[in-house]
């Protein structure tokens, strides 16, 4: 498929996911057990997408998260871009194609991004956000459980479009 069409499609998916996350699956309504679809999307971009613009998509998705999460200054943009780069670098590993490893990658990506953010918050202790490491572990598990089947379905759709 044309790379521009792939990029635009993934951009639309990104907007769709952020919309769902800020309405139906907002943590205000779904609580801590909500899956972070945006993070799953970024791991998907890092693992599957051959589009060079996927780096921009990951940054754009993080920026939208920043704006809609009370206009945070680059917190999500940078943490998710970092997660994208780490997964992207390791995505040549053959075991990454297995569901169990994928689940582990999503889990570790969740832990990484939140540890990244929490470390910044701890350094700037006056920020006042209240969030425990147990919450992060819980979210990592939820993301893995939701993410693996989503990956499986999205991977198939993506492969079909790539033909």
């Amino acid at each position: 498929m044309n790379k521009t069409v792939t990029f635009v499609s993934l951009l639309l998916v990104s907007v769709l996911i952020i919309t769902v996350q800020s309405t139906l699956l907002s943590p205000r309504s779904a609580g801590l057990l909500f899956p972070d679809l945006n993070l799953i999307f970024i791991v998907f971009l890092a693992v599957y997408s051959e589009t060079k613009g996927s780096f921009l998509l990951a940054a754009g998705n993080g920026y939208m998260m920043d704006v809609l999460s009370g206009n945070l200054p680059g917190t999500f943009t940078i943490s998710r871009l970092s997660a994208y780069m780490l997964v992207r670098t390791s995505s040549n590993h053959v075991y990454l194609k297995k569901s169990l490893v994928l689940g582990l990658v999503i889990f570790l990506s969740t832990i990484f991004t939140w540890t990244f953010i929490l470390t910044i918050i701890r350094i700037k202790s006056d920020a006042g956000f209240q969030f425990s490491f147990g919450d992060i572990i819980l979210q990592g598990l939820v993301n893995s459980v939701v993410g693996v089947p989503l990956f499986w379905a999205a991977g198939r759709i993506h492969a079909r479009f790539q033909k």
Partner: protein
Amino acid sequence: MGFFKRRTILIVLVLFFIAIQLFSLDLREKNSQNPLSKLVLSITYYPQMAVSTVTDKAVGAWRDYIDLMHVNEENKRLREELNALRQEKFESAEIKAQNARLKKLLDFKDVSLYPVVSANVIGASPSILRSQVVIVDKGGADGITEGMPVASYDGIVGRILLAGDKSSEVLLITDPVSAVDAYIHRTRARGIVKGVGSGCVMEYIENKSDVSVGDKVISSGKDGFFPKGVIIGTVTDISSNGSFISAGVSPHVDLNSLEEVVIIQKSVNNVVLNE
């Protein structure tokens, strides 16, 4: 660690330090005037409105269905009240409740000293990092600007954090970044109401002040954001720490089921206290 390239680790470390620097910047100065932030709000406005409308209709239809089921059961059991029940089944409890809320909002408009704009909540923060943020369907095109106080007929809700063209973000009073200068209504003891996620806490009340559980907390108007005398909540518990008293405050507005709000078009006079 073998499969991570050394260069990637270095870039991530650099990004981390950039993130720390960005986080250090003053909240007021960062993105509020950034056209990209407003663009994001504009891009997400229409999908959010669509999802919100569809969800409201689906929930309304489901409630209507439940109501109808209930009416049918009533009809079976109480044949003699058939006519009354037939009338009732066309009345949606949702519409009634909404009418009541809207009426109260109109009453609020009548008594407010400042012009107000009604708005519907169409979304919320997509992150648990700062979940005490909601998105409303009014923005710069309706005269909304950053810092304007947001209320409901029950009291203070929060203030506008970012105004897009058609939608805006509202920072709720339960957010840890929020601060409202306030009085205890009964004794005029002054303090700062801060958010703690699940509720609020009124801090920096002088130790000699008279504060009791059940006291109403109202805005003082001295922070430059919120008008004077609007109810914030009720004192639920009191603790003393050093020379100050802290009081737990339960917000008067049920922020978890927020649907309609009014944005008070009051210009910001001063800087908010803890930013």
